[in-house]
């Protein structure tokens, strides 16, 4: 592939070639999943070139982190990818823990894995609902959001927040699980596979849905790797890579799960891969419930880094001092740099953190999967019909908050 052949690299604003016209799609468009603007050059109904224009949601989180203490960055990470807040929390916490050389108690790790998989289901449900709605299948949207509501209630139980959870903290968790929480998760996990059957009954063999998706938005495995896609988009091209299995973190090596792949590489393949992932995720949640370590510490034993329990803080002088010090001065992190990658629902979520030995991160860079995957959109769309753009956008599952940061 030579430089000028790379899809989406540039688009000339010339209308002189009298067959083509420039069509502006977005940024305010219901099926672009946020504020994505596409500049599309069309020849009749066929797309000649397409260029994504992003940055409408750029909030400068990377700059903001440089002025915050390490523990103050956790709530910012929720707001990057608002559909999988816990995955972002997890990536950031793992990266800082790696910088500190810190070990996390087993119970905290298992709760993290469980919540992370519930978050993946949450994110995939929003994707499935909105993607099907873009295609014209409205019913599934309502069913998906019914189950998502259950998940948001679980989040609320565990963290007090429905979306911006900030439940994972550096060194462990904010709080232990509330009473009856595991029973609630168990009920949900037992019921959920039949819900997935319900979605699949409506979609997988639905002739309208299938004909709308099959063969649309094809990308070859070579292009998918060259354009930097990860996650389900890459797995649907036949590349068998999943960081949970291939570079385990947070105790994922203790769980058994399959990595769904497909070799077709079109929108329908990505749909099948993600629906299979729903089933695999709920399997991991079941394994967490079965093997969840009984009551034990949920925070690492590092009083200078992890906030003390409320009870201890009110009764012990030392804990009160540590609490005061962490809140007012933060904690220092030994100099160095780490890159921690996690398999988020969209692909490889990576945090690159540079520490200069002070209490504030010197540099935090988020490698967001939406940003990288969006580069593959032109390759999926060019030379094909304009009506299929919406299907292709839905199939790479971008979140613009994640994309623009």
């Amino acid at each position, binding site marked *: *592939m*030579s*430089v*000028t052949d*790379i899809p*989406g*690299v*540039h688009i000339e604003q010339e209308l002189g070639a009298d067959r083509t016209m420039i069509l502006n799609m977005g940024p305010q468009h219901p099926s672009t999943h946020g504020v994505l603007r596409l500049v599309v050059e069309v020849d009749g109904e066929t797309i000649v070139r397409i260029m994504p224009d*992003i*940055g409408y949601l*750029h909030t*400068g989180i*990377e*700059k*903001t982190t*440089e*002025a915050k203490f390490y523990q103050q960055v956790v709530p910012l990470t929720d707001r990057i990818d608002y559909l999988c807040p816990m995955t972002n929390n997890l990536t950031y916490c793992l990266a800082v823990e*790696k*910088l*500190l*050389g*810190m*070990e996390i108690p087993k119970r905290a790790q298992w709760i993290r894995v469980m919540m992370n998989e519930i978050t993946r289901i949450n994110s995939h449900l929003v994707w499935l609902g909105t993607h099907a709605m873009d295609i014209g299948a409205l019913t599934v949207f309502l069913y998906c959001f019914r189950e998502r509501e259950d998940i948001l209630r679980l989040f609320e139980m565990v963290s007090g927040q429905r979306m911006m959870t900030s439940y994972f903290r550096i060194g462990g968790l904010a709080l232990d699980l509330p009473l009856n929480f595991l029973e609630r998760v168990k009920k949900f996990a037992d019921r959920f596979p039949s819900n997935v059957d319900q979605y699949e009954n409506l979609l997988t063999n639905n002739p309208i849905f299938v004909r709308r998706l099959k063969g649309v938005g094809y990308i070859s495995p070579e292009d998918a*790797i*060259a*354009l*930097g896609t*990860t996650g389900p988009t890459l797995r649907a091209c036949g*590349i068998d*890579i999943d960081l949970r299995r*291939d*570079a385990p973190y947070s105790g994922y090596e203790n769980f058994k799960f399959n990595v769904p792949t497909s070799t077709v590489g079109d929108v329908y393949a990505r749909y099948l891969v993600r629906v299979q992932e729903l089933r695999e995720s709920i399997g991991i949640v079941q394994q967490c419930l079965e093997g969840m370590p009984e009551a034990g510490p949920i925070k690492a034993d590092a009083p200078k880094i992890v906030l003390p329990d409320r009870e201890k803080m009110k009764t012990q002088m030392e804990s009160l001092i540590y609490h005061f010090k962490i809140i007012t001065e933060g904690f220092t992190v*030994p100099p*160095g*740099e*780490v*890159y921690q*990658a996690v398999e988020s629902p969209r692909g*490889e979520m*990576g945090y*690159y953190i*540079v520490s200069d030995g002070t209490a504030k991160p*010197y*540099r935090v*860079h988020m*490698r967001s999967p939406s*940003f*990288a995957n*969006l*580069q593959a959109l032109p390759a999926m769309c060019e030379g094909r019909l304009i009506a299929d753009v919406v299907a292709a956008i839905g199939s790479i599952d971008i979140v613009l908050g994640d994309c*623009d940061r």
Partner: protein
Amino acid sequence: MALAPAVTELEQLKDKPEVAALLGWNADAVDGAKFDRNELTIWIKRDFILEACKFLRDHAELRFNLLADVTCVDWLPSEPRFEVVYHLFSITRKARLRLKVRLAGDDTRISSVISVWPSCNFFEREVFDLFGIQFEGHPFMKRIMMPEDWKGHPLRKDYPVEGYR
């Protein structure tokens, strides 16, 4: 778990296949290496970055076929001021490698690696936008996050967090 001290001597890192391969290919191109917290970093001299990337991608054993990330760190006030950071990933070997290039504050030009990995298109544009690094050979070096008429590069350390008022 206590942190093991970082290994920064190039001599001690010769058993790493990435370091050995790069030294065998062109010892002048390598500007140093570091092994810290289980992550390997290799510094490449600016003029060799494009060839080094091509070499690492096409090497029969290393096969770093996915460019995961490109970013930059501003070390103001020390010189060389900027470090451009590449995170490479090998899908076949499931291995990671970090490449770094040091850039002086008054000469922020570097060759684009877009001919090796098209995926650096957005990443290089982002680094240009937020740090002002000029990637030579990139066909569309325009701002991506900030508005086109924006002044300054926000992630530089001399840019105030509140922005210019």
